[in-house]
């Protein structure tokens, strides 16, 4: 009897919390994103970035850069414009409120070790563990899919991501000194940091 009552109580509480995953403000405005970024922004693939847990300030900068064509992406430019139509603050708040789980994409242990050694040069900005600096809009790159991280490093190196952005000059200068093969190692390392 007591067990039954306890169960009823638990169910009632869960119900009262309105725990439905679509109840959060912004959740329904983010429905289209799941086609590429996975449920709740928890991307299961190697190529698409995880959006869960992105800081709203960084998220908004990314959306604005895509919509303006500063960060060229055939996929994201139209979708960023849709986000601006729907209200970027709601969508940013929704993804920020999702707990980020690290990527499940596997990486090679030897690559992780090589990447760890090369990662020292990133620490001045991204911090010793790659967790970033919210105030400076430097993202947390840990746990992101390795394929995505590698692609972005290449885009920085070739000045194809946000070309001309003064804030990113030092970052791009650094990327130019790093051989392409090392990007895979750095990506393996940062994606494996928990």
């Amino acid at each position, binding site marked *: 009897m007591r067990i039954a009552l306890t169960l009823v109580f638990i169910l009632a509480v869960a119900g009262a919390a309105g725990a*439905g995953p679509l109840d959060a403000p912004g959740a*329904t405005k983010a429905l289209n994103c799941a086609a*590429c970024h996975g449920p709740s922004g928890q991307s*299961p693939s190697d190529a*698409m970035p995880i959006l869960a847990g992105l800081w709203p300030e960084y998220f908004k900068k990314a959306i604005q850069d895509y919509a303006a064509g500063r960060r060229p992406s*055939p*996929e994201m430019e*139209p*979708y960023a414009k849709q986000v601006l139509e729907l209200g970027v603050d709601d969508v940013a708040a929704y993804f920020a409120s999702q707990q980020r789980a690290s990527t499940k994409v596997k990486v090679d242990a030897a690559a992780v070790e090589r990447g760890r050694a090369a990662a020292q040069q990133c620490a001045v900005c991204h911090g010793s563990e790659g967790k970033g600096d919210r105030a400076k809009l430097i993202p947390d790159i840990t746990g992101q899919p390795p*394929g995505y991280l590698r692609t972005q490093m290449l885009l920085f190196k070739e000045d194809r991501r946000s070309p001309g952005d003064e804030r990113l000059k030092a970052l791009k200068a650094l990327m130019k000194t790093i051989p392409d093969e090392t990007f895979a190692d750095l990506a393996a390392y940062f994606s494996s940091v928990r």
Partner: protein
Amino acid sequence: MTGITRREFLRASGVGMVVGGLAGGCAGAARGDMAPKTGRRVVVIGGGWGGATAAKYVRLADPSIEVILLEPNRTFVSCPFSNLVLSGVRTIDSLTFDYRGLRRHGVSVRHEAATAIEPETRRVRVGEGYLQYDRLIVSPGVEFQWEQVEGLAENQDKVLHAWKAGPQTVQLAAQLGSMPDGGVFVLTIPPAAYRCPPGPYERTCQVAWYLKNNKPKSKLIVLDANQNIISKAGLFRAAWRDYPNIDYRASNKVVKVDPSGREVATDFGDKVKYDVVNLIPPQRAGTIAVQADLVGADKRWCEVNHLTYESVKHRDIHVIGDSTIGLPVPKSGNIANAMGKICAVAVVHLLDGKQPPALPPGNTCYSWVNDREAIAVVNAYKIDGGKVVQIEQKLTPGQSVAVAQNAVGWATSIWNDILG
């Protein structure tokens, strides 16, 4: 090729346990009310891209609503990426999934076909039995207009469409594989509107790529009923520069097929000989939608409200996916998935007596131009004056391995979104 096996997919999507759900498969046995309704209930017809998504998302939005999904097939075979089975770049197994994920969300999946809809009594007939609903979501995909091509209806076993991924996809791959070097493969494209505008041109790339590498003396003749390539034309033309074996003929509508003479005929009376033919027939909404009088005056497609996907013809019945018309969107899996989610949210609001939010769909169609490169078209929409309106359409600047990697990312995510 970054193939994911079915097992990997299921693992990645966290599927493992089978809980709840009616065990279907009792087709034919049930009479009368097959499952008396105790609370609010949504019935979904069709467990493809639109219907499976809608069933899952009604449960996500409100787990107190009972959801029954009717789908005769026991497995879900993805049409997207199925052109890669023809070229041998992918296996059909890598595109085949089961419905355990939906059952985990509490969807009652019944492997039976709906045989009729009765809007007045809000019943879906399943053979001798019926299911009562509060709201019905219909996503039966497309049906072929066999009668539009002479000789087709009676030769369905020989003249393959492979336009519903599954056994025909594998059979067509086998026909292509056993065609002699020097043979002619004829691919015919129906007039728009049909399922997946870029699909036939992606298939052209895959067959041409296969022939180039395996049967270099062979030729691919494409007979297109349309006046030009109807999607991503510039990108496909560029891709076809690698395939001198393609003979593309626009404004060539095939109206007749003769399997004994191995010949098709166009509306101008031109005859074209083939060793293997892939005839994609003209299409209309799934039969159940036509029988239930959900189609418009054209007797082909269903018109719906742009915010709720409720039929303009029958109350409490919503239509999504390829069966719909009147929105400025392609008949794509991505659109069917987006409609499924938006419709689910709308249905839950309506059952609660609330105003549904105005949510627009989005679309991306990736097409593989060889074994490792792809192109894409992306469309974003907004709601303006109660209607879906396009904000922007964007194409990839060219074909690349990077786009193909994004295609794999898209497929991984969206399969998970539908079934995981």
